[in-house]
């Protein structure tokens, strides 16, 4: 009898251990692929409700989605290249803040219609520097597919998107050349006011 009880208890203990390990694993294991797919799902949802939601509505929905899936601080840092080091701390903060707004605003402006598009996962690839690239494509009825490659980096245990390559055109490389060029030519204040001007335009269009 006693033996049976011990056995039962052991089994129970084992079981509960198993459950807790599983729970732990689930909490930890938001993979790079899941981060991308969650984000794509949220984007499609915003597109689907695009007709009923105004810019401000889409913006607030996407702000959460973008900041939870993108490493906006790192992206902002990369797009100004080595100029980052020359900025004061206050300027760096300002840049991250304005850049984040701009990123979300451009999503909110550009992704407002839905014509049956869908994202399809293709493959996953690890880069030499510990990053992950998620290869996927967007299908659009009656149109050629668009390749979307997401580059993710581990940021303190969380995978975050740092670049999106659409049909071979790298958003990060594009922005980086553009931003460093504006910074070097016109200076920091001009860069910020240009970005603000663009955000303003997006909200009105």
């Amino acid at each position, binding site marked *: 009898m006693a033996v049976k009880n011990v056995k039962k208890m052991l089994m129970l203990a084992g079981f509960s251990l198993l459950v807790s390990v599983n729970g732990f694993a689930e909490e930890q294991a938001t993979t790079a692929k899941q981060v991308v797919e969650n984000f794509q799902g949220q984007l499609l949802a915003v597109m689907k409700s695009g007709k009923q939601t105004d810019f401000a509505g889409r913006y607030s929905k996407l702000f959460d989605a*973008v900041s939870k899936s*993108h490493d906006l601080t*790192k*992206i902002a*840092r*990369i797009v100004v*290249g*080595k100029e*980052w*080091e020359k900025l004061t701390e206050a300027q760096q903060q300002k840049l991250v803040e304005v850049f984040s707004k701009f*990123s979300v605003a*451009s*999503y909110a*402006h*550009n992704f407002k219609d839905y014509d049956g*598009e869908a994202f399809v996962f293709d493959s996953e690839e690890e*880069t030499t*520097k510990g*990053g992950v*690239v998620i290869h996927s494509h*967007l299908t*659009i009825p009656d*149109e*050629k597919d*668009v*390749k*979307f*490659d997401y*580059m993710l*980096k581990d940021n303190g245990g969380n995978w975050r*998107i*740092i*670049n*999106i*390559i*659409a*049909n*071979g*055109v*790298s*958003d*990060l*490389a*594009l922005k*980086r*050349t*553009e*931003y*460093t*060029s*504006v910074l*070097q*030519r*016109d200076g920091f204040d001009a*860069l910020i006011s*240009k*970005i603000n001007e*663009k955000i303003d*335009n*997006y909200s009105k269009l």
Partner: protein
Amino acid sequence: MSIFGNFCKHYSSQQMFVVLALAGTIGGCATASVEDQKIVANKADPYERINRKVFNFNDQLDNYVAEPIAKGYKAITPDFVQTGVFNFYNNLKNINVVFNDVLQAKFTQGAEDTSRFVVNSTLGLLGVVDVAKKIGLEQNDEDFEQTLAVWGVPRGPYMVLPLLGPVTARGIPGAVFDTAANPSSYVGAPVQLMSVLNTRANAEGSLKFIDEAALDPYVFTRESFLQWRNGLATDGKSSETADFEDDLGEESSSKTLADFNRKGFAGETQKFTDVSKSFTSVEQSFENTAKSFQNAADKLDKLKK
């Protein structure tokens, strides 16, 4: 971030070329005073000072001439006619695509593109209807500049030409060859004018996109043009996976552009190796070609039913 994704979402790469070729035509006021400003040297763009002037010139020309005409054309021409006109010219381009498929030893794709041209020229009423797409023959994008790239010819400097827009040194002989290989080049000015007009009208949305998104339309156009052409030449295999981690100031921060350019060269060498590989597998290609002819025939049979 990736607003560019949305750009691509709406425009096929064919249209994208048009957009970028026309993109010397946008964002006037933002760049108007650029001549007085200090120009930052970029290795890919040694003639930036002149290029910017031409870019601004094209921009003005578009604002005052091309845009109003294209808008007028759009207003009086129904959408299906615009699509038909686009398809017609696009179909003629396929002769050149097939040429370049062969020159790049892409025999399978060459066979598909030949079927595409044949199907659209016959069932598609001289190309006005894109029947081939409906049976799964996608439009491929090949031209002589890509062929030269595959052959290992270096890209050369970026230039903006008056009226014609962005090009690289390698693109000039490319454009001459492509023009010679396109039947519509021999028909006369009105036909070409129609093509240009229709193209400009179709590009309206994309030009608006660049205008909205770009902080510096000149740089935006140059970067997307160069990246896009590079992607085409390598068939997307050179997909940019640089993570720019080195730029974060944690390591030496002076090796940004230089690194980039060196990588470009490595890419060219890789391409060259790829080509020799592709030549050695010609036999395989022929087999695939035969198969794809068979497939195309099957698809046609299905279509007839």
